[in-house]
């Protein structure tokens, strides 16, 4: 198991050491987003903005005008939701070099309930030109994508899960923005997934393998980026496609795949959050089950589609 938040915080500190143009902004959740590590290391390059997300976003755009590279932090819900129009106009319209770090996305803040859970974030930001959207699958990929986000000139939205999650890489793989990663080969069906759903897809593939169904799992860590590789290249001989994500079924990975596969006759099914708000629960897994984000559901859909 690994933790994306600490991996992110450590990586930002490392990057900060190498690159003096990095600055960080926070809206009173630094001990949770782990931007507190950057504050400890470089207090003079850290701006605590108080609980004022909208100001933080446009303030960061201002910082970027003279060449600073701001990484801005709070929970995804309060960043993408509250400050959407500031992201749209102050950052994306002018293609400013600001890195928007949406922490505790999805259902991962299980206790706090609907206000704090954010699974329409991709949907909102995917509609904005110039935006790049990344969902790391584990702590290693978080490190790699944080580095890549700095290297890329322009707006980036990086989603960070709150909870400990399985490590899926060995730690020496090359990770690039816009390049999906095949986590498991298979010829009968493909599951495209991001975040925690990659683990669920791998579990589903295992379940199905015992029944003689061979499933490929592709980690789509980039939902949007200029020049990203087409997911069509990953279909092989698949006769069924699943898009699995911890996100609403509207305008996320599912929509991306439906769009890419239009005109083909390959059936696509979505495993995502139906048209509902979040709620409190005793732990993350209880919510994942309640919202249908399970290996069993993926496996069930594939079985049906191949019938």
């Amino acid at each position, binding site marked *: 198991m690994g933790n994306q938040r600490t991996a992110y915080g450590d990586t930002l500190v490392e990057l900060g050491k190498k690159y003096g143009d990095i600055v960080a902004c926070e809206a009173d959740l630094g001990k949770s987003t782990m931007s507190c590590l950057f504050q400890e290391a470089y207090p003079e390059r850290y701006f605590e903005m108080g609980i004022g997300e*909208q100001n933080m976003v446009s303030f960061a755009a201002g910082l970027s005008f003279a060449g600073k590279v701001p990484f801005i932090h709070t929970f995804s819900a309060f960043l993408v939701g509250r400050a959407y129009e500031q992201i749209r106009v102050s950052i994306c319209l002018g293609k400013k070099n600001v890195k928007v770090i949406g922490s505790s996305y999805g259902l991962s803040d299980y206790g706090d309930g609907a206000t*704090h859970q954010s699974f329409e974030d991709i949907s909102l930001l995917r509609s904005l030109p110039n935006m790049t959207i990344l969902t790391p699958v584990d702590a290693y990929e978080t490190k790699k994508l944080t580095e890549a986000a700095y290297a890329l000139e322009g707006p980036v939205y990086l989603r960070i899960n709150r909870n400990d999650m399985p490590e899926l890489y060995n730690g020496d793989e090359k990770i690039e923005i816009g390049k999906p990663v095949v986590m498991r080969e298979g010829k009968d069906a493909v599951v495209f997934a991001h975040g925690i759903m990659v683990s669920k897809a791998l579990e589903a593939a295992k379940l199905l393998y015992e029944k003689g169904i061979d499933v490929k799992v592709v980690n789509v860590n980039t939902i949007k980026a200029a020049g990203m590789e087409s997911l069509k290249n990953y279909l092989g001989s698949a006769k069924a496609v699943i898009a699995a994500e911890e996100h609403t079924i509207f305008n996320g990975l599912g929509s991306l795949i439906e769009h890419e596969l239009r005109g083909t006759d390959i059936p696509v099914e979505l495993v995502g959050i139906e048209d509902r708000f979040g709620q409190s629960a005793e732990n993350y897994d209880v919510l994942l089950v309640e919202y249908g984000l399970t290996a069993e559901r993926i496996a069930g859909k594939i079985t049906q589609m191949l019938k």
Partner: protein
Amino acid sequence: MEVKEKISYLEKMSKQIRRDIVQMIGPNNKGHIGGSCSMAEIISVLFFDEMNVRPVDPEWEGRDRFLFSKGHAALAQYAALAELGFFSKDEFKHLKTLGAMLQGHPETRTPGVEANTGSLGQGLSIACGMAASLKIDKKPNRIFCVMGDGEQAEGQLWEAAMSAANFSLDNLYAFIDKNRVQATGFVNDRYKTDPLDKKWEAFGWFVQEIDGHSVKEILAAVDRAKRETGRPKLIIADTIKGKGLSFAENKAAFHNGLMTEKEYTQALQELA
């Protein structure tokens, strides 16, 4: 009730609210202890003395409305609502579990909760709209709304502040729970929001500053505010985050903190 009796009753109820908050969270669980406990006296005065509500008829038209703009302190409101009989205290043990009536932040599925809050900065605007609606209908009901001092950084609060003055919402009673601590540390070390009295006065509000743990001062301030007409009223309550739990007082770690078994036992002893 005699004034003295009333004060000692409301003080007793503040303690009960704190005990319920501690028991709702329980040991080894995270919960918003600090900002809930700092509110106990204000909640006690509002719910057990000042506000007109009917627990058997939560949507009674004549009720006064209470809104937590700092929604994370919901536990203090849950304690008062249960004490009044809006729902059973059995609900406490299901707090923040799947399908529970008592969510992490206030939701209208809970009897007695008027609006969904928890994203800071929105509550006061909703309160203003409710107050304006009552005014055009010439209704006597009042709106009570509690904000945090860290929350003062939200720009929307200041938009709401202006609208309340613009529409002369004198049926609106707002509080700032000035416990000096936000989520990650002291407000003044993190992001200054002072001087709040001068700011709110400049925005057109009738402002009073009191000791937020003195039932007597809260009662007096609410009475004084009632006599003020033509503008919205603000009471800045000087409080201690985590009040009543010696290990939690003034500590950001107990903003959304976890009590060990030992701390839990100690808390209940201190609140006995």
